């Protein structure tokens, strides 16, 4: 089936990007001073032991070879090195923390779509009335906020004053609520505005006029004709804005003390923990690439024009 070929093609195209990304990150983080030997064995260790460990870990090899070794270890031996701080394998820790981050991000996206898309459609359909001005104004305001700020305000109100949700840790599902809202509101504001403009543009299209000329009710025109077309670009924008979401997600994790990948990387940077930072950022970037790929693919499934392009059936 041609769709499979399309997916394979895109996956193949991702490989050079992933390699490029990992190389770039590796090179940058490599600039942090400090060698693995002295970091892992501690200040009191003997110089010979330090040198031997460095030799073993390939510290004295030229850059390209070190990178090669790192990638080889990462892919084939699933070894991303050991954290300088905890002396434990980085991959295990990432494995524990990545699901938390993904959960937070996924919740936020869901929240933003539920919040932003319907209001966006409403404000487009009722353009220039109060149903338009209020959501649009709100969206503008929200989209300009940093997630950590909203998080702090939420924390103040719902944790400290009302005591409904915990301010820290992942004790229960309740811990995920405030991060979801803190991240989801600014993202949702952006979704609202984009859905609105996409919807407004679609309503102006000729085929909407054709539907009316056929005798369709206004509701049918909106739901059946306009929305299907208007929501297509919303999907891509949701995917593209994901990068912005990550920034907010890292701050939110740190704020709410969630043991996610973002807070892991932050503490790694503060401690100059090279393996943690390198591994963490690369994994994050790779996951991000997969998300973008998934979004692109979903777009192909939803829009018959793109589908035709890739299955080679269209003109």
């Amino acid at each position, binding site marked *: 089936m041609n769709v499979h070929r399309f997916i394979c093609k895109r996956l193949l195209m991702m490989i050079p990007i992933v390699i490029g990304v990992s190389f770039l990150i590796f090179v940058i983080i490599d600039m942090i001073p400090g060698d693995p030997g002295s970091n892992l064995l501690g200040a009191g260790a003997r110089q010979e032991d330090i040198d031997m460990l460095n030799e073993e870990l390939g510290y004295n090899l030229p850059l390209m070879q070190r990178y090669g070794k790192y990638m080889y270890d990462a892919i084939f031996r699933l070894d991303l090195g050991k954290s300088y701080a905890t002396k434990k394998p980085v991959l295990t820790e990432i494995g524990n923390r990545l699901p938390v981050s993904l959960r937070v991000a996924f919740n936020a996206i869901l929240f933003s779509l539920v919040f932003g898309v319907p209001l966006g459609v409403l404000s487009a359909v009722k353009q220039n009335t109060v149903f338009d001005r209020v959501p649009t104004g709100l969206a503008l305001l929200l989209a300009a906020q940093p997630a950590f700020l909203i998080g702090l305000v939420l924390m103040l109100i719902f944790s400290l004053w009302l005591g409904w949700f915990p301010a820290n840790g992942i004790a229960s599902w309740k811990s995920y609520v405030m991060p979801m809202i803190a991240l989801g509101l600014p993202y949702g504001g952006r979704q609202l505005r984009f859905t609105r403009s996409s919807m407004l543009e679609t309503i102006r299209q000729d085929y909407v*006029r*054709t*539907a009316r*000329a*056929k005798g*369709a009710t206004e509701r*049918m025109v909106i739901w059946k004709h306009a929305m*299907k077309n208007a929501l297509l670009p919303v999907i891509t924008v949701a995917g593209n804005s994901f990068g912005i979401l990550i920034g907010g997600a890292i701050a939110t994790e740190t704020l709410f003390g969630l043991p996610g990948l973002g807070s892991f990387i932050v503490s790694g940077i503060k401690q100059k923990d090279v393996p943690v930072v390198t591994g963490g950022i690369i994994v994050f970037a790779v996951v991000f690439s997969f998300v973008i790929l998934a979004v692109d693919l979903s777009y192909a499934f939803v829009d018959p024009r793109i589908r035709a392009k890739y299955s080679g059936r269209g003109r």
Partner: protein
Amino acid sequence: MTDKLLSIKNLSVQYKTDLETVCAVNNITFSLKKGETFGLVGETGAGKTTTALTIMRLLPAETGRITEGSIEFTGKSMLDLTEPEMRSIRGEQIAMIFQDPMTSLNPVMSVGDQIAEAMELHNKDNKTKEQIQARVDEVLLLVGIPSSRKFEFPHQFSGGMKQRVVIAMALACEPVLLIADEPTTALDVTIQAQVISMIRNLRDTLGTAMIMITHDLGIVAQTCDNVAVMYAGELVEVGTATDIYTSKDHHPYTTGLFGSIPNLRSKARRLTPITGLMPDPTKLPPGCTFAPRCPKKMDVCEAEHPCAWRNGTHLISCHLFAGQENWRKEEA
């Protein structure tokens, strides 16, 4: 009792925004009978599409206003109808096809679904799904498209075929009146000929009345029984095809239109356009709207708006015919 299918009297339509008022259609009167093809000719911006949209009551709600006049369809006044009543007429009794086939079809719905939708919206005798699909096949065949293509999407068809789909969609419910707004303007000349020929055949077979809106005098000659020439929102000349094409008497604008068609056989070096531009619809001149550009302008033309003068089936709105033999003043 009237045998008129559609009767429009003294219709005026304006577009009103905060900044300005556009007088798009000014006091037009015409009618057509069942099975008749009526041509509405004029330049871009003359008000032809506005007229069509007004008949369908598809004017933009915020800005479009019918300021005076009446539209009667099969004897009933259309302007009094409620929106649900209008919706039941649209697509079923009066169908409209638009100018640009490239954008008139929904890109994410299959062609068959869009044609079926036209029928599902007006399913008074409760046809089953199979019956509707059968009709979709039938109507596609009628416009020369194999019914196996009904699952395909608009982007998989060429421009000419897209327009055929649009026509199929319009005719699916067998309307008594089809309004075709420049159906071939966006197509190549060779495809134009095919589509026009197809429209003519369908009209002959189904007996559909048609309003053919176009700026192409050639198409009018091939298809229309009666013709009206529109300028700046007014009908400056109305008559049968014979009147328009063979009579010696014409509104100066009509003469200009015919004169500006390049003649293959003439040895002329230059084209003869009509000098000047159409007047600004927000600031129409007093008197005759064509006077500023008219080569036969008289003093009275700028002062007084001309009334219509009739000679048999031929109506011309011009002071030149006041007092001429055979021409009688037409009472409004």
